């Protein structure tokens, strides 16, 4: 494409099929302890 560069074409909806295993890190345990950011967590079920 000439006008659009897709830097992430992954589709969140596809994660619904095998999502929710719960093995990933609890977001608050990692560094913040006072806020909630989930978008930067890693999936452990890839």
């Amino acid at each position: 494409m000439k006008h659009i560069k897709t830097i992430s074409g992954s589709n969140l909806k596809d994660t619904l099929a095998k999502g929710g295993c719960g093995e990933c890190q609890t977001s608050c345990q990692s560094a913040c302890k006072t806020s909630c950011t989930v978008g930067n967590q890693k999936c452990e079920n890839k």
Partner: protein
Amino acid sequence: MSKAVKIHKFNLNDQNIILDINSGAVHVVDKVVYEIIDYFEDKSLQEIKEIFKDNYDEKTIVDVYEEIKTLTERGLLFSEESNIRNLKYNEDNIVKAMCLHVAHDCNLRCSYCFASQGDFKGDRSFMSLEVGKKALEFLVENSGTRRNLEVDFFGGEPLMNFDLVKKLVDYGRSLEKEYNKNFRFTITTNGVLLDEEKIDYINENMDNVVLSLDGRKEVNDHMRKTVSGQGSYDIIVPKFKAMVDKRGDKDYYIRGTFTSNNIDFSEDAIDFYNQGFKKISIEPVVTSPDKDYALREEHLQKVLEEYENFSKKYIEIKNKDKDFYFFHFMIDLKQGPCIVKRAVGCGAGSEYMAVTPEGDLYPCHQFVGEEEFKIGNVFEGVFNTELRDTFKKANVYNKEECRSCWARFYCSGGCHANAYNSHKDIMKPYEIGCEMEKKRIECAISILANLDN
């Protein structure tokens, strides 16, 4: 009914960015796309040509229209929301993460401490071995088929009860074998009591360590004082440096708090970097608005500008040193969490709980000391199941403000404690926190867009 917003566009760090909210796809676009996309859903190609005829030639408009159309057909623009509004979450009430308050006492007297200088509004106390073991047993027994279990040693200051920490790590390792689990131990410390032996022990046994420090010496010492009222910077920094030097590749975060006294917190972040700390986090203070150092509405604009300002500096550093990480600018667009995790958030009150020295269970460390949030104890388990259900239901589909917010799959509804502190209601997000989080996400995506080039 107003139409659901499906995309979010913004310009930051010289990039026009379009985020497709429901798929999570991210596109960097030129000026033409950035303008035309606002009309794509409601206008025909003919109408769009008419609107932009004085700005762009017809071929460009048609090409842009076709590109948007192709991505829309592929589900990467204007995608519809997944039908998981009646999300079933943690129906088996599995617990997999714990914050162990091994010491409700502290050897610093930080002015902004949400834990009332370490005692959490109660008596100063230490967790006993009996309570600690019981907590780990509670975790293992309630973790169902989850293999990875997380235990953070927290306080007050956990190094004040370090013998217990070591005994609980040993006990956890013995439970791992018996129950086929993998414990990930972490510790959050102010560093005052760090010595070589503790540094080696922590580096060997803790998956992550959170080291509390606020940045520049004068900023740190203004808030983080010793019991006798002196600044703590000179005591702590050499110890943190020694710890990080010996830690190798293992995770750590130098974690600071910013208040209305240091809205120029990017200076603190840069100071961390110049001191040799490369994995950093700086968090907005959590406190009631009447405190003189609180972040209030009147500070918000400056804070947002500071995040943008920091993102520019961050790109410069990242271009030279890829090992520099700011927690809130890290975003994984390709291998990030699934939509379920994004919808339910931190798991406080069901998957995640805090344990007091006496063994009481609270939804998370931020609620400890708020009597009405006592959810159970490690001896009897969870007895306030109504409270647990309330926390389980606090997801982005049930929070009114989140349902229409473009950032809902990144912040996951935000921090329950922030919501409660500002509105006495965990279902009503803390607006200032929301605005800061949205800016951090925009910064994080714009950083990726720049580094991707």
